[in-house]
């Protein structure tokens, strides 16, 4: 193998046709306000846990909607349910219940 001084980067394109939407469907049935999210990131910006851990609520929302289940669990247990995210959400998404619903989805779906 030759080292040309640069490398191949892994393709990060996501195929929406191959996403696993079971988590999204279950969470939406438990907390329909998930569909109100506009992805502004205010939740992540104010998150107390995110200051110290890898919890990122906006990213969670994105990967659930994509059906990319590999990174759903990352940081989820770090939520302290302080509710600041819910206070700043401009769309009124019930984020604490969303986290609970997601935990329940993981219990059911693995």
């Amino acid at each position, binding site marked *: *193998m*030759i080292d*040309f*001084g*640069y*490398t*191949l980067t892994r*393709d990060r394109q996501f195929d929406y046709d191959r996403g696993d939407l079971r988590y999204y469907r279950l969470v939406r049935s438990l907390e329909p306000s998930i569909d109100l999210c506009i992805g502004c990131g205010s939740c992540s910006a104010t998150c107390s846990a995110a200051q110290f851990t890898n919890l990122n609520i906006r990213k969670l929302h994105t990967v659930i909607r994509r059906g990319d289940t590999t990174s759903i669990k990352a940081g989820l247990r770090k939520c302290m349910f302080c509710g600041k995210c819910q206070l700043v959400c401009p769309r009124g998404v019930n984020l604490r219940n969303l986290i609970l619903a997601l935990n329940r989805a993981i219990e059911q779906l693995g």
Partner: protein
Amino acid sequence: MKPEGKRLVWNEYQKEIANDNYFYVRSCVRQNFFPAAEKTFLRYMKEMGRNVFENPSHTTCSGIGYHSDIVPFETAMTMVARQFALMSEAGYENFVTSCITSFGLYSEVLETWEHFPAVEEKIRGHLRNATGREFVKPKNLAHASDVTFKLRKDISKAGKYRLINHITGNPIRVVEHIGCHYSKMFPSKGVGGAEYPYVLIGMIEEWGGEVIDYPERRHCCGFGFRQYLVKANRGYSVSSSKKKFDSMKPYKPELILTNCPGCPMFLDRWQYAISEMEGTTYGENGQGIPVMTYEELAGLILGYDPWDLGLQVHQVPVEPLLEKMGIPYDPAKKFLDINGNSMGKPKPPSSMKFY
């Protein structure tokens, strides 16, 4: 969405291509990449009875610098104005470019002047002050692949070979790749617009081949200018090409046909680089997929000697395609120059089959 409907919409994107008397401007890089492509264009144009005029004083259009964020647009426009002045001085009004990026830049400049006449006047002033020259805008602007597309039936009639496997009788499976600057910036300037550009498809179909559709068909070849020009960024370039190769491989293409200086360079060279970096090849039996410019392919169809077309400098060997098309070639002459002297033989790649 029904693809047939989309094709119907894009069918309306046609352009007028002059029939004769062309002022031809070469690419600043192509002669290094595929040295006989432009010469071959001039050769078959002459054989088809067309008058093509060249002025050796013409320079780069500066598009490569403009798209690399090095040359400002005003400078680029003044350089383009000088090329137009050379055309006007020679008494021509049909401007033909060898390079896709040049074609895109000329289109962009003419479009800018159309909408901002004050800018055109300013550039005329710059050219006058710098060189004392005046110019008339071209009546017809075309890329050399447009002109070849227009002559595709004549080339087919005069041709000795077809894009058909002479053993099985099946059409050769061809991936066509259009340079981004051909019609993605100004869809109305290309045959078939941006989404279904027909310029290369027309040639492939006329010459007997089968066009392959695949998911990443309209993805960039990977050149992307700044992705390649800075060495540290070349991983982006080769990864873009790899994305295309991975996408086309299941459809078993036997040839990649291009109309841009950068695309054949990167789709050809990166196949070698990927084979050396991770051992992957994309053709049959450890071969690569041969990559050609439309001039080289037209030359093959017309029966020109493959080594006169410069096919020996391709990184991916073209011999599998020549054998399928039944085109004779002399392996002993592959690395001889025009005087019969040895040009030196490259070191064989470690993964890709070498001839």
